[in-house]
């Protein structure tokens, strides 16, 4: 066993391509959004492809919709597999959510009923995805504003069930955990305690915002990826690292790019927290075997 510190980086966005390249040395890893590559023109594609071999990459998707109660989109999965072959990322992550149904795509991540039947369906699909891509497959916990009334499992039990059966990894979004714990009133540390040790393979961090509207019982925190990572999320990071050994910690930013230098502050704050914890955990391997 060897002591390893997780790699720290950001989600690559073409809107900050120039800035990202100018600061490449500040990051250990970049997360590529596969759908930006697939839906992008040659400028976007060549900019992303240009990063291959210059810095370790990990791949993230937003269009799989693994939770739709219908067969996976084989054409989309073909494109994902082909792009993964080309970009050679360490892992491929997606969201434990649904975004679309046949003929309609809201392009927003929506929650699933947390039941054993839904978990079984996700497990079967995750195993199929694992058979199609040559790198480890991870699923991310989403932030959700509403829950289905027929949910019978806790967030952690739902995740443990899926990851226990599939050997897929959890991409733990700590900002989503923080928002969900606020919006749905549960203790995020108890959630972390309930997760099967070792299932977290990557971590997402971001900064959200609060929204208050007529009709809401109280203000909601939303995952806007627009602000610095809050200290509460970094506290959760420190706590999570005592039980999990993620390969990568990725900071996501999708708004307020005029203040993009805040990302460098976030990176420094994450590394400072890692310095507090890195002696406390050991890593056997960053990712398990693919498939």
């Amino acid at each position, binding site marked *: 066993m060897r002591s390893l510190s997780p790699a720290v980086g950001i989600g690559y966005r073409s809107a900050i391509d120039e800035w990202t390249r100018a600061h490449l040395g500040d990051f250990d890893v970049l997360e590529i959004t596969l*759908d930006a590559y697939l*839906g*992008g*023109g*040659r*400028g976007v*594609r*060549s900019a992303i492809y240009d990063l291959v071999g210059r810095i370790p990459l990990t791949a993230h998707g*937003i*269009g799989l919709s693994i939770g*739709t*109660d*219908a067969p996976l989109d084989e054409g989309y999965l073909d494109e994902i597999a082909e792009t993964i072959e080309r970009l050679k990322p360490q892992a491929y992550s997606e969201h434990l959510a*649904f*975004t*679309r*149904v*046949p*003929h*309609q*795509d*809201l*392009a*927003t991540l*929506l929650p699933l*009923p947390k039941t054993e039947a*839904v978990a079984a369906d996700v497990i079967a699909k995750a195993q199929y995805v694992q058979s199609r891509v040559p790198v480890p497959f991870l699923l991310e916990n989403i932030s959700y*504003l*509403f*829950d*289905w*009334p027929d949910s019978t499992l806790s967030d952690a039990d739902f995740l443990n069930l899926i990851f226990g059966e599939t050997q897929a990894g959890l991409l733990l979004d700590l900002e989503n955990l923080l928002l969900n714990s606020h919006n749905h009133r549960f203790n995020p540390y108890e959630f972390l305690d309930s997760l099967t040790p070792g299932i977290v393979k990557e971590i997402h961090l971001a900064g959200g915002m609060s*929204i208050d*509207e*007529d*009709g*809401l*019982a109280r203000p*909601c925190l*939303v995952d806007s990826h627009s602000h610095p990572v809050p200290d509460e999320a970094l506290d959760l990071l420190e706590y999570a690292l005592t039980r999990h050994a993620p390969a990568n910690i990725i900071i996501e930013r999708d708004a307020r790019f005029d203040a993009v230098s805040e990302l460098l502050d976030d990176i420094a704050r994450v590394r400072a927290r890692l310095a507090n914890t890195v002696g406390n955990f050991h890593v056997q391997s960053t990712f398990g075997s693919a498939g």
Partner: protein
Amino acid sequence: MSNRLLDRQVRLLEYLSSAGILFGEEADMPADPALQGIDRALLRLEARSACNRRIEKVLALFPRTFDFLGSDRKLILREFIEVSQPTTMNSIANGRQFSEFLVARWHLKPPTPAYLPDVAACELAIAEVRNVADEKLQPMGNTCDGPKRNIRRRRTAVPQRCYYDIRSIFDIGFGGLDPPKRETRLVVTLPAGICNPQILEVSPTVFDLLTLLDDWTDPNTLGTINNLENLLGDLSAQAFIEVES
């Protein structure tokens, strides 16, 4: 009521993309049994968030068009949301949906200024050429050697017929003089190695030829066009056409 998850997911997406919930009129909508037990205020927040993301994609593709729409912008976006369901996360596909909506709307009620359809069409063409993924570049080679191979218009060269010469709007931006009314044949193009699309005026002959070359075409079938060989050489040099490999 069906308990199948897919049915409930379909109903949820229909609800979240309905104009009623987006514009605060859901109190008038009948309660959907499939969504019973879900907080409506939270659904409204989710719906608005998703809709805003879709609108941001459209706004990013049609900045000049929206400048000209001015105070009509809100009304037009609302009409778009009412008639056009979200079917894809893809930006350009949402842009095409918006363009189709505008064409249909303006067919019934021509806009002011009258050159706005030309502006919107060119903005969509710019988005289309930006969206083209890698092309395999094939030189034309010596067109006199051997059998001629099929040719087609490059996806990065979009012909656009306009009724006003709106190029100044793309050079100078919103707020300049009204463009002159003059039928103009343009090609919106993004040659390799160039970051920003160019809008070029072409002759009627070139324009008509490019519109004939949407699909792979045997150049021998174009024989009635004068000086075809030289013309094809010029079009290839400008990266307007490509040769089948």
